[in-house]
């Protein structure tokens, strides 16, 4: 039997509505609250697209800072002492790199997802799981690097 055409009489939604009606409360959910809906591929893809664009915007700012830092840091060669002293001087650097790592862990796997879908033709749940795993691994590796840079022996 199709549950959407004939819902069971004891469904929680119905009894909650009946209870609300008995107490003179609103039988309808308040206006502006979207009703819960089943999974929608359109919505899921749109949210991923938005995540890709928002992370891109954050990364754009981060990468400008990163490139400027690189240009200055490579003058006269790189040394661990120089890098660690700079980073550990201010908690602002830690906050900056946390945002940087988190954004890239969103942005890079989503980019790979599009490449794999379009150039290798893999799609669907397994690809999504693999991409989620890639993002998690990337985040873990990034946080581990930050742990070393900011909390390692000095």
């Amino acid at each position, binding site marked *: 039997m199709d549950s959407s055409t004939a819902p069971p009489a004891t469904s929680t939604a119905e009894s909650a509505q009946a209870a609300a009606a008995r107490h003179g409360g609103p039988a309808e959910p308040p206006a502006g609250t979207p009703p819960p809906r089943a999974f929608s591929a359109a919505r899921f893809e749109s949210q991923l697209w938005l995540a890709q*664009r928002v992370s*891109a*915007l954050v*990364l*754009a700012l981060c*990468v*400008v800072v*990163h*490139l400027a830092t*690189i*240009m*200055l840091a*490579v*003058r006269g*060669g*790189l*040394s*661990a*002492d120089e*890098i*660690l002293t700079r980073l550990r001087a201010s908690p602002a650097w830690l906050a900056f790199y946390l945002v940087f790592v988190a954004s*890239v862990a969103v942005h*890079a*796997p989503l*980019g*790979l997802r599009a*490449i794999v879908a379009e150039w290798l033709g893999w799609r669907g749940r397994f690809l999504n799981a693999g991409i989620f795993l890639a993002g998690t*691994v*990337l985040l873990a*590796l*990034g946080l*581990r*690097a930050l*742990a*070393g*840079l900011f909390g*390692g*022996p*000095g």
Partner: protein
Amino acid sequence: MKSAFRSRAHPGFWAFIVHRVSGLLLALFLPLHFWLLSQALHGPAALDGILRWVDRPAFKLAEWGLVVLLAAHLAGGVRVLMLEFLPWRNWQKALLAVAAGCTIAAGAAFALNLV
């Protein structure tokens, strides 16, 4: 029937290829980058060991390549965001020229700071 290569010979398509390939290479490089930095967990000497090990011309060239890839992906990405989020105007090729210019400038700046 596949579309011919010639039909793609326009700047927007090349900008896309640069964006996609640079993004792919940067994504593949990131785990290595993070792993190298995490050597600081073993103390400054371990990180210094890595930094000395990569201090040779071949790696300098590779680093320059990475900086150019990053600058290209940044400039190309800002271009895409502007096309998608700002009111449409006929400035695709101007944006492309600016993006290419920024990439070249970043590559030159890094090269000059290396020597």
